[in-house]
Every structure is written in C-alpha cells, then in structure tokens.
C-alpha cells in the first residue's frame, strides 16, 4: 500500500522549487554517523488484499466472545453494543479529527463531549465531569492526585476490595512520590471500618467491589468526610440505574471504567476513564473540559475551557500530563447513554441484577460451586470458590464453550473465580453454564477436549 500521492513529476518539481535535486538533499544536514545506512529489516509492502488476508488470518487464530458464551468480568463486560452507537460515533468526521483546538471547525465533537459530561453528571449525581481519561485505573490515579492537591496530604487509604489491577497502577504512579497508598483490610467481602486520620488525603472504595459485593459505601465515606479526606469511589456506570449514585453516597470524586458504555471489548482497549467530581475541585481536574459559551453574534457554542490547568499552558505545574485522551470512546458512551435513557439504564440494571442472582442461586442449588460470601448482596458479578485450581476450572469451562473469570485470590487466601452476568445472557445460557460447572466439578476440575469451543454454539440457539 502507498498513501503518499506524489508522482515522479511532483517530486522533481517540488524539489526544484526548494533548489534541491534529490530527496536525500533534504536530509543532507543529518550527521552521517546517526544514519541507518542500510535498508530496514522489515518485509516489503503488502497490498491491501494481502494485508487484510494476513489480518483476517491473525483474527482467525483467536476465539472471541461470539465463539463462546461470555460470563467473564473483572473490569470488562460483554454488555450489548447497539448498532447505532458506532454507526454514529464511527463517522469519519469525528474519527479523523484532532483535539478541537479550533472550536468553529469542531462544534460537533465539542457539543458531543459537553453532552457526555452532562450525562456523566446525571449518572453520578456529581457536579462536574471531564471529557474522558485513558481508562478506569488511570482515572483513579488522577482522582487520587486531585485529592492530594485538594487536601495537601499524601496518605491514601485503599480498600482491599479494589480490583488488583487498579491497585497495581496506583502503586506504579506512586513511585513519583506524590502519594502513598495504604491498604484497608477486608471483612466479610467488604471494606472493614478504616482508621481515617487527619493525614489522609483520600479513601478509595470500589462499589460494587472487585468481588461483586455491594459496599457499605455511605458509612465509610462519612468517616472520610469527618477527617477532611476526599471520598473516592470506583463505580460501575451500568449499575446506576438501580443503585444509589456516588453523589448520594457521599463520594467527592467518582471514577469508572467506561467500557460498558457502548465500547467493544477489544482485548482491553481502547476504553475510557470516566471522572466526575464536586464543583469545588473543578480546577484540580485533569484533562480536557468542554464549556458552553456564545459567539460574537450571541449564538450558543462550545469550547475547551479551564485550559490553564493543562500541560500546554501550565507545563510542569499542570494538574496532569494528559493530552490525547479517549474522546471517540466518550462520544460512543454518550450515544449509548442517550440510547438507554433513564428507563433503559434502569432496565439494564434490573436485568443484570436478576440474571446474576438467578445464576448464583442455580449454581449453589446444584452444589457445583460455593459462593465466596453466601448471602452477601451483589449486582451483576459474584465470586465463587472452586475445589479444583481455578485456572483449571476456567479452562475446562471454556472447552465447553463458556468463559468465566478472571480467577481471583480472596482476601482470606481462598481461591476462586468471578462470574458476571450481563443483560445479554439468557436463562438458557445460564442453565447450560450451571450444567458445565457440574460436569467440571464431577471431573474434578479437569475438562475433556470434548466439544471444545462448541458448547456455547452447539446448544446456543442464539448464534453465540
């Protein structure tokens, strides 16, 4: 493939216009010592048909979420992505534009982002949102930085029920020295009562938590408030049609992995980091923020605002170093949220809740597995404890056409698997999952190759 449109004549004449005779003259001032001086050790160009055949072959060597029934969770979920979402967010005027530095040419993406911010505020019950961050875990890092900046403190209490990936990322960025994560123990699958001292910048809680359990968030956040610390919640955007909003719970800053909002699984990215906060912290927020204003003729319009916070102005004193964010994913999230509306959001919540509950009950009824915390309330995801090694069980189930997981280590050392059930899963799929669990348990966690990858399809009936 070739996308440079220059004909030989163009090249000759353009060089001539520059007073040069060969393309190499353009690089004459590059010191010889640093030049490669040989051809790249790469394959020659592929034609478009060959390239796509190559990529189709690679894609064909993967099994994807239509090849099995997906009960996997742990931060990424097989929620339904309506056809309209990418038919619109994927329009090339959005996809091929840059950050809207010239607002008059970018009202489309600016208004879309303003509406995204508005819906995130509606969703969280908080006052301000930015135009997206990289993903959930990096959004948490930014939230913690905001809390430190707001309180002038460094200590960050992090619940033991936080997704370990979030904790890892937090620890990585803590190396910069701006904050210091300290872990809060777990009791009965939820965050124990923490000691929130005057030196604490933030209390970080995930609710629903990594194990799927619902946290006593309001009570915990109250302790943070009393100590003048920021209450930071990691939330599930699709739970907020039925569950109390972060704002109601007393969260000062709420962050989420935005993937469930109309974004594809895509092996972990591109997703988006959602961040909302209270108005008092708006000047400490990271990243792009879109604001409404008027033009010289009084027409309503939108611009990037509060840019004095950002790296291109504030440089080493910026609230964050983020520049490119995940705008297109935020546009998709906005289309998706507007597609749902209040009733659809509530319905997704009801479906997840009921189907997850059904799955948990059936699994325990047949005694295929044990719930990690029987009776503990959860939303769409729950942890089960397996006799056999969780990875082995996971693989055996996958041979039967069901993906569960990820495998998890429970706070008390027990080991198990996460099972999550989205609105897409049918009763029939759940019943077949339960059967598979029984078989695997019977086989002592070992799976047979029988029907590898077909189970989900074979009995499928819904083409998965």
């Amino acid at each position, binding site marked *: 493939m070739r*996308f*440079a449109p220059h004909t030989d004549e163009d090249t000759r004449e353009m060089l001539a216009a520059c007073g040069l005779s060969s393309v190499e003259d*353009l690089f004459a*001032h*590059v010191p010889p010592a*640093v030049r*490669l001086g040989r*051809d790249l050790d790469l*394959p020659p*160009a592929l034609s478009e048909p060959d*390239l*796509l055949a*190559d*990529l189709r072959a690679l894609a064909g*060597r*993967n099994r994807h979420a239509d090849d099995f029934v997906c009960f996997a969770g742990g*931060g990424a979920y097989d929620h339904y992505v*309506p056809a309209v979402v990418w038919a*619109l*967010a994927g329009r090339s005027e959005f*996809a*091929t534009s*840059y950050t809207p*530095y010239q607002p*008059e*040419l970018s*009202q*489309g993406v600016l*208004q879309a982002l303003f*509406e995204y911010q508005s*819906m995130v505020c509606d969703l969280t019950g908080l006052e301000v949102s930015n135009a997206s961050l990289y993903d959930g875990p990096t959004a948490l890092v930014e939230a913690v930085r905001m809390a430190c900046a707001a309180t002038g403190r460094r200590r960050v209490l992090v619940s033991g029920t936080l997704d370990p*990936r979030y904790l*890892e*990322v937090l620890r990585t960025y803590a*190396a910069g020295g*701006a904050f210091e994560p300290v872990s809060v123990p777990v009791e009965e699958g939820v965050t124990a009562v923490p000691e929130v001292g005057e030196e604490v910048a933030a209390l970080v809680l995930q609710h629903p938590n990594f194990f799927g359990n*619902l946290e006593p968030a309001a009570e915990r956040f109250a302790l943070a408030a009393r100590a003048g610390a920021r209450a930071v919640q990691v939330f599930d955007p699709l739970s907020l049609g*039925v569950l*109390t*909003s972060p704002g109601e719970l007393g969260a000062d800053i709420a962050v989420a992995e935005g993937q469930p909002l109309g974004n594809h699984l895509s*092996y*972990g*990215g591109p997703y988006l980091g959602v961040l909302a906060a209270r108005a008092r912290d708006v000047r400490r927020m990271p990243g792009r923020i879109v*604001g*409404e204003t008027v033009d*010289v*003729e009084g*027409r309503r319009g*939108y611009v990037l605002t509060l840019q004095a916070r950002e*790296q291109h*102005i504030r440089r*080493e004193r910026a609230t964050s*170093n983020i520049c490119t964010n995940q705008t297109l994913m935020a546009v998709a999230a906005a289309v998706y949220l507007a*597609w*749902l509306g*209040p009733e659809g959001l509530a319905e997704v919540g*009801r479906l997840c809740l009921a189907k997850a509950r*059904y799955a948990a009950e059936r699994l325990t009824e047949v005694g295929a597995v044990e719930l990690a915390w029987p009776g503990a*309330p959860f939303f769409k995801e729950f942890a089960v404890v397996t006799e056999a090694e969780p990875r082995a069980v996971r693989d055996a189930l996958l041979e039967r056409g069901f*993906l569960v997981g990820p495998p998890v280590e429970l706070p008390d050392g027990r080991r198990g698997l996460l099972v999550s059930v989205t609105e897409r899963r049918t009763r029939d799929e759940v019943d077949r999952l339960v059967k598979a669990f029984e078989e695997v348990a019977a086989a002592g966690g070992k799976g047979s190759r029988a029907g590898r990858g077909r189970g989900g399809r074979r009995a499928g009936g819904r083409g998965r």
Partner: protein
Amino acid sequence: MTGAPVRRDGPPLPGTLRELSRPGRRAWSLPELDVPPAQVPEGHRRPAPPRLPEVAERDLVRHYTRLAQMNYGVDTGFYPLGSCSMKYNPKAAEAAAALPGFQRLHPHQPEDTVQGALELLWRLERALCELTGMARVTFQPPAGASGELTGLLIMRAYHAKNGDPRRRVIIPDSAHGTNPASVTLAGYRVAQVPSDARGLVDLGELEKMVDEDVAGLMLTNPNTLGLFEEEIEAIARAVHRVGGLLYYDGANLNAIVGRVRPGDMGFDIVHLNTHKTFATPHGGGGPGAGPVAVSERLERFLPAPVLAYDEERGRYYWDHDRPDAIGRVHGFHGNFGVLVRAYAYVFGLGRDGLTDVGARAVLNANYLAERVRGAYPLAFPGRPMHEFVATARRFRRFGVRALDVAKRLIDLGFHPPTVYFPLIVEEALMVEPTETESRETLDAFAQAMLQVAREAEEDPELLRQAPRTTPVRRLDEARAARELKLRW
C-alpha cells in the same frame, strides 16, 4: 463586505439531547426478563434513575449526523496542524480493527485463545524495535504523554537500582507541554535548557547544566521547531558522561523513520505516537497509543506483564514474573484496537514505504515553507524537516495576530496550522502538511495563506471578523472560563 456577518438561513443549530428529550420516548431495546425478577438489595436502591435524555433512535441519528457534519476531519480536508501529524487514515486499517476476532476479545481470555492477537503484537514489537533501534517494547501506554511518564518511571527505577537517585531532568525550552508535566509526575524537577539562535539545544548551556544529579534529558528530534538537532551525538555524550539517560519523544519520528533510529542517536528510551507515525485516527482527541521502547539495559524495568514467546510450544504468553518491573501503567494491554491499525500501516507500507513516509513529509513541508516564507518568515533559518514554524509577527502592526490569520484560513476552507506553539516563538504558526497530501493541496493552501497575508494589510478587519462561514463564529472563551457552564 468587511465584517458584515453572512446571513444564515437553513436549519438552526442543533439543540442539545436534553432539549430534544420527551418523557416516555425511547430508543433502547433490550431482551425480556427471562428469569425471576430480583429486588435491589436493602438500602442500595436509587430512588429514581438519572435524568438522561429520552429520545428515539431517529433523534439520535439525526443529532449526531448533524454534529458530525459540523466537525472538520482529515476526511473533509487538509489539516496542517503542527506537531499533530494529521495524515490520511487508511480505511483498510478500520476494516481490520472491526474484525470480531479482534473487536470481541475479552482482556481476561486465556492466552491459548488469543494467539493471533499476541502474534500481532509480537510482530509489531519486532518492527518497532527495528525502527527505533531498541531492544524491547511495552504497548501499555495509551498515548504519548503516558509513554513519557512510563519512560521516566523506568529512568527512575534504573537510577534507584544503581543506588543513585537523581533529582533533575533536562528538557529544552521548546519542549511540548507534556514533557515538563511528565517530569513532575515522575517526581523529578525540570531543568530547562535554552535553544540557541538556530533553534537547537544550546550545547554550551547544556554542558554547564549536566552533573551527577541529572537523571536524564528528554528530547524531540526533529525538535518541536521542526529542526533536526544536528549536535545530537555531542548532546548524548554530555548526558551519558554524567550517567544520565536520553529519552526520545517520538512525536516527530515520522520525519526520519527508516533513515535515522533513536537508538543510533544514543537514546535509551523512546515513545512513539501511533497516530502520528502510523496514521491511526485521532478520534477528535483520542484514542492514541504510546508504545515505549527501551534499550537492553532497561528491559528489566518495563511494565509487567511483558509479551513472551515459548519456542518449544510455539506459543505466545504474558510474562508476569518481572521482579524489577515498574508495574502496570494501564488496566490491560494498552489500546489494542489502535495497535491493530498501526500494524496495518507498518506492514502495509513495509520496508520502503516506511522510509518514504519521512521523505514525503519533509518534502511537503519544505515545498510549502518555500511557497509561503515570503509572507510568513520562518522563525529559524535552518532547513525544516516534516514541519516548519513561521511567524505572523509582521502583521502585528495592522493589529492582526496569528489567531486572526488562522480564523481567516477557516473562511477559505482550510483547517489552520497550530498557533502559539512552541512558546518560544512569537505569533507562531506551526505548519505540518504530512506525507499524504498532494502538491495540489499544498499549492491551494499556500495561495490561501498568501491571500490572507495581503488581506492582513488591505482589510485587517476581515481577519479580525473571521470566521464568517462556520455554524458559529468566534466564541467567547473568557466567558466560558468565567461563567463555567460544563453541563446542561
């Protein structure tokens, strides 16, 4: 005609979704509840769902179609935004990324079920190592700035490992804002080295600044003025002499890809912006991808997990057993969907095509600079590489600023260049045509720039009143920041 606003007719500006909303209207369509209903657990029920818009699917489609048509992209026209490399994004790459075998992969799938995805990353890593002259790559950073911070944390881990923590990182005064911001977040202090009269790092000053407290130097080469740092070897020597590391900001690699490799210039850490070098679409602000490549001695510090290949079993897997790793910098494996597109550009263009990227990008920039420099003098004398920085200083006396030039270009049908960056250039106009633009486009744009230069003298008000052909005209940014309205 000066200043007279264009009379607008036709459809009004689109309202917000909130304004379109009507109670009880809906677009959503979800499966029936086929299991017993479940109560929301005690004390967790939200009294009423959030007040999201209530619209029909048709409302959504018309709303976003209108918005899209009010947005300027590479697909609609020339986009010479300096430092952003707004080149054409091949449609074949979009088709590849949309394959269910990539788009529908769950990040927690066991490795045996994603061998195709891992092989794609493996091949791409090998290619990036060849292009940068580095040993290994992490794909976790979702954008350039994230790559910078990742690189700086690797720098930090390296010095810590050597039991010699350091406090300062040097950056040129022409550096992109993310550089100093990343330095701070990495826990270092910024030491700024001035540019000399040529717009290059002032080597003398640098020599004076380097000492055992310097952890490293961040450099973009070609630098943000579009000039090649010709003394790069001496610069590298100076930093290495005191035990510092060299960080390469790859935002401008597209100028020299295939010709000059950061590794051969002495750099130890490199980040790439796939949307700049490899034509992945920027999505109106993102997503990007900022893979970080490092030399052998830094490999052990790369974020875990690291991609590995098991020769015997002919199988790719994620190696989590990395004691010296700095840790995760992204929740999963980075922006995989973006990397699929980058793969398409790298292997679609291939050996010679990649080298041609720089040749055409630099040719286009030089040709365009040549066409307009009479009216817009270059900020520095040196030969521009893939972009050039000109100044609109001389229009000041007509009361015209670089911003006015930019806005007038909009009325003539073009997206303006970057303005007011780099900060060290007054009234900067930073122009980057990229390799995918044709001579005809450059000529038309040059003509427009020259027309604007004439108008700046003859009818400055025309520029100050611009743009007049857009759905909205100049917007009151001060008011936006004063009367914060960030949501409906």
